[in-house]
């Protein structure tokens, strides 16, 4: 890969995290918040945004400092930086809404332990220019938020009959409580993965058939 292409920021830099290497659906990273807080769409969104913020801020900072961080202490440094931003987010959310803070509980602080963020710091931010890291982190964050929403929406609609707290089906709707329980989290994420796998295999099969026909 030439130096030039390595440095340029393309659509791919952003969209990589959104779809092809989606941190949740493809790389299965950061599962803990994915499942724990997605029992409602609003929680999912808040968690997604909080994570994106940490991802962006830590990515940018690490990228800026990448030449001055000695290799031996880089991971420790990354963790400290990430923890700093997580603490900031934690207080910010408390300040914005106590209810949201209570709903997300310790999982805000657990963003620190989200392997996605450390992974990005190590694999991307420490090797790329700030703007590029920033773009990539934005894509990753968006992909993460999207995945969280995918779960949050399904679980809230089925499990509570509402979306972003707005009642959808009227008072007589019987919610499927299991969906907002832990088991539902596992099952819905499993179902999403199954769906994607099915789509992928179908696409491969169709391509194979198309290739066979043209031959």
């Amino acid at each position, binding site marked *: 890969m030439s130096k030039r292409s390595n440095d340029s920021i393309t659509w791919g830099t952003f969209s990589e995290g959104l779809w092809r290497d989606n941190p949740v659906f493809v790389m299965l990273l950061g599962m803990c918040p994915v499942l724990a807080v997605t029992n409602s769409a609003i929680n999912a969104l808040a968690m997604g945004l909080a994570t994106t913020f940490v991802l962006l801020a830590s990515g940018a900072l690490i990228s800026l400092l990448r030449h001055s961080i000695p290799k031996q202490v880089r991971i420790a440094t990354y963790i400290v930086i990430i923890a700093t931003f997580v603490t900031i987010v934690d207080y910010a959310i408390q300040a914005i809404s106590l209810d949201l803070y209570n709903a997300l509980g310790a999982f805000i602080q657990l963003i620190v332990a989200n392997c996605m963020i450390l992974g990005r710091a190590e694999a991307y931010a420490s090797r790329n220019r700030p703007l590029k890291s920033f773009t990539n982190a934005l894509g990753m964050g968006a992909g993460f938020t999207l995945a969280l929403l995918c779960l949050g929406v399904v679980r809230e609609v089925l499990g509570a009959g509402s979306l972003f707290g707005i009642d959808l*089906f009227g008072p*007589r*709707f*019987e919610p*499927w*409580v*299991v*969906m907002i*329980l832990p*088991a*539902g989290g596992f*099952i819905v994420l499993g179902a999403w993965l199954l769906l994607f796998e099915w789509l992928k295999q179908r696409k491969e099969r169709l391509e194979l058939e198309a290739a066979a026909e043209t031959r």
Partner: protein
Amino acid sequence: MSKKPTIELRTSPHAHAGGDVVRIMRNVVYAMLPICAFTIWQFGLSALALLLVVTATCMASERLFNRLSSQPSSLGDWSAAITGILLALTLPPGFPLWMGAVAAFAAVALGKALFGGLGMNAMNPALIGRAFVQAAFPVAITTWTPAFFEGRFTSFVPTTLTPPFLQPPVIGDWVTSVTVDAFSGATPLALQKFEGVQMDAMDMLLGTTAGSAGETSALLILICGLYLAARRMLDWRIPVLVMLGAAVTAGIFFLIDPVKYPDPLFVFLSGGLMLGAWFMASDMVGSPVTPLGVVIYALMIGVLTVIIRLFGGLTEGVMYAILLGNAATPLIDQLTQPRVFGEQRVGK
């Protein structure tokens, strides 16, 4: 000698004990039929409708997944029908039909199709379906109907015909209108746990109490189970040891505090223990194959059932105990591999 016969060529052994999977499965269905008949007699049209809808949904789902995975139909092995009937028997008789269908679909999809069908499922599909709706619709699944209520053959329990995705109506008024003596809306287990009232053993034996469709008559289940055991279609050690485990655990607590804890006979006869022990814990697919493993598995189910009943938040623990037993089966199997003939006893 003149005509040339075809010569068959197969591998040894050239003899077979006879009997196959389908025959076992069919016999399980036969054994459940009396229980179905009893529940229909007891709860009327609603129970019949529930049985039909749940079983039909199970079979339809099975066919659907066959088709999705481009497999030939596996309805012929009767396993989907068994799942359906068992599932229906574990639901409250007035359970809304649409929820029954959800349970049936969950049973086949999560419990079976996901793992590759018959023989591959990790846990009992019927119980997966039951656990799913227990978690999804906690209110409906704990709404009980009195046994032998008036007009059960001419009208449905009001909750049965709830339109899909809607909440079932509250049936308190209906219950008082169809029963003579006040029906508390509680199963024997709930009565014991929350009110400290112990039901008459005879009622529970004969099944004149409230409860899930198929669990009320301990006697009938016992007879049907014994039929299967006699025909060697199930491993009698499992139900016996499940009940032994339950009885001993219950007995210990009963001896500690006879006022607070129910006596072992009650534990035996109440709730789904009988049905679970004879028809679900004994499910071959989910139980260990090693002789020692079977003992551990069955005792574990019995003990867990009583522990959950006495100390847990729920009134009934059989379902969860069996599911956990199923989940632990691969482990148990691995840890209890029999000592191979000639293997040294010490050293390994």
